[in-house]
């Protein structure tokens, strides 16, 4: 028996030096920045990408009961959409536009109603889109109510996420659109669906700049030195936060983020230490539980099963992220408004508040996130100015930035392809 208590040897993190870019079959040269600054390219994106791709606009929990509805502005379509759960429990989507004279029918963001009334002249619709009431109908001329319902929008659900397609008859189904991503990520558990922290930003930059910010961890040590770097990089073992894996899945993609296993709040960080007393997950995590075990066991999550894992970032083409960690999941919607304007919504799914200490932890979590968002938004506005100056025609991407390269490659295909089937190849 030894009198010396041997400390187990510290886990040494092994960085995967194989090229993610080569493995994805991508080239390695500089890429054009025109897609970030050209109004003409933006119009192509509107018509050929956003009006042909399936776009995620929310989750089924936003329609908790029969007759629940919500509305959402999709500025890139110049449209207001109405999403309902009808009496047959079907989730339906419509243009939120009255057949009479084109007014918006519903002006609330969400609610519960079987009948929806346009307040201009009280035309009444059922939540399955049928026109059911027209005041003073006899003074209209040959009005056939059956042909005057709300204009439907193609709608489908994958793993609880609601997707819409602007094409009246989508060229490809949602399953075809999601392709290998949809099968690979099927069955991932979604938990902490009780409550949501929502952080939003309207800012002056191209939508891809913020999407790109979440596609690579290379910037974490430099742009987020205090908010993220201590948990997502390591001064010796992973100084530049190199991803554990980064892969293309058809037109979609993911990377797995490193987590510093030695991370502890600094002794001077009294509040962080106080509120993270229950925390067993990463910096941006909440709790460890059976849910977390089921998540990490799923083959799509942290596919190399690296022990120094913190989170997976998945980017569903064109503008949606689902990110997974042991503490739960969060989503990003990057909505283009103009070539140099973006509306970004971050939804962080959290457990219902259980105690005073838990509530303090959630406050710290929310304000840390808001600070990260502030750092990224400020940064994107600076990049936009840099690109608009015309000083540079290309940008240079390293291997950890593979997802950005893949995004531009897929975008280029969609903009050029006359048929969606060709854009999916």
């Amino acid at each position, binding site marked *: 028996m030894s009198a010396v208590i041997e400390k187990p040897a510290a886990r040494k993190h092994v960085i995967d030096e194989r090229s993610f870019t080569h493995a994805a079959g991508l080239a390695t040269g500089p890429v054009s920045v025109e897609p970030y600054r050209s109004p003409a390219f933006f119009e192509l994106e509107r018509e050929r990408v956003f009006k042909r791709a399936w776009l995620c606009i929310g989750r089924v929990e936003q329609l908790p009961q029969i007759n629940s509805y919500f509305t959402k502005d999709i500025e890139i379509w110049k449209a207001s959409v109405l999403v309902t759960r009808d009496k047959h429990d079907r989730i339906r989507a419509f243009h939120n536009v009255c057949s009479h004279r084109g007014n918006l029918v519903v002006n609330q963001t969400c609610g519960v109603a079987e009948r929806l009334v346009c307040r201009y002249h009280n035309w009444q619709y059922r939540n399955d889109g049928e026109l059911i009431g027209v005041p003073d109908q006899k003074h209209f001329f040959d009005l056939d109510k059956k042909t005057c319902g709300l204009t439907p929008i193609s709608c489908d659900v994958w793993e609880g996420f609601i997707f819409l397609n602007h094409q009246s008859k989508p060229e490809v189904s949602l399953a075809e659109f999601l392709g290998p991503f949809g099968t690979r990520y099927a069955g991932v558990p979604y938990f902490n669906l009780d*409550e*949501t*922290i*929502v*952080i*939003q*930003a*309207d*800012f*002056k930059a191209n939508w891809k700049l913020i999407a790109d910010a979440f596609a690579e961890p290379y910037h974490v040590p430099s742009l987020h030195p*205090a*908010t993220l770097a201590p948990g997502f990089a390591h001064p010796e073992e992973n100084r530049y936060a190199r991803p554990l894996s980064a892969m293309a899945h058809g037109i979609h993609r993911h990377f797995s983020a490193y987590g510093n296993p030695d991370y502890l*709040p*600094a002794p*001077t*960080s*009294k*509040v*962080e230490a*106080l*509120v993270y007393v229950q925390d067993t997950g990463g910096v941006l995590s909440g709790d460890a539980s059976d849910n977390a075990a089921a998540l990490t066991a799923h083959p799509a999550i942290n596919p190399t099963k690296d022990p120094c894992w913190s989170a997976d970032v998945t980017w569903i083409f064109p503008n949606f992220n689902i990110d997974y960690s042991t503490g739960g999941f969060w989503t990003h919607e990057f909505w283009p408004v103009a070539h140099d304007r973006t509306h970004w919504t971050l939804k962080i799914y*959290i457990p*219902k*508040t259980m*105690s*005073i*200490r838990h*509530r*303090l932890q*959630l*406050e*710290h979590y*929310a*304000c*840390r996130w*808001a*600070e990260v*968002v*502030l*750092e990224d*938004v*400020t940064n994107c*506005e600076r990049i936009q100015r840099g690109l608009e100056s015309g000083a540079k025609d290309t940008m240079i991407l390293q291997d950890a930035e593979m997802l950005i390269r893949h995004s531009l490659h897929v975008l280029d295909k969609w903009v050029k392809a006359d048929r969606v089937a060709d854009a999916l190849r």
Partner: protein
Amino acid sequence: MTVASPSLPPGFEELEAFVPYWVLDSNDQRRAARSTAAMDDIQRFYDAIVARAEQAIVHCEQFKLGQMPPASERLFKLLLAMNHAAIAVEMHGAPRAHESAWPSAVRITQGPWPHGGRI
């Protein structure tokens, strides 16, 4: 001359001076308060609330969430604001992220229940 009646539970008198600025109803308001405050003022609040945080938490734990008497709820809101002060003191050493724009394009439009707020 009338003396303002204390707004916090007995025993927390030394935090009274921070009530007008730091007791706020939503996550986003607390963030804005910290982001626009002077660093000295944030540090003063931080030092005072951290020194009493454990006792304040124990006090608030007597009540159910969302059902506190007004004085205790104010104390709880000071604890919530403590997290925001911590972002400045423990992370940035400045009221908000370095070289960040303010007024900010960022809003917490929905915070955790209770006292998270919705915009």
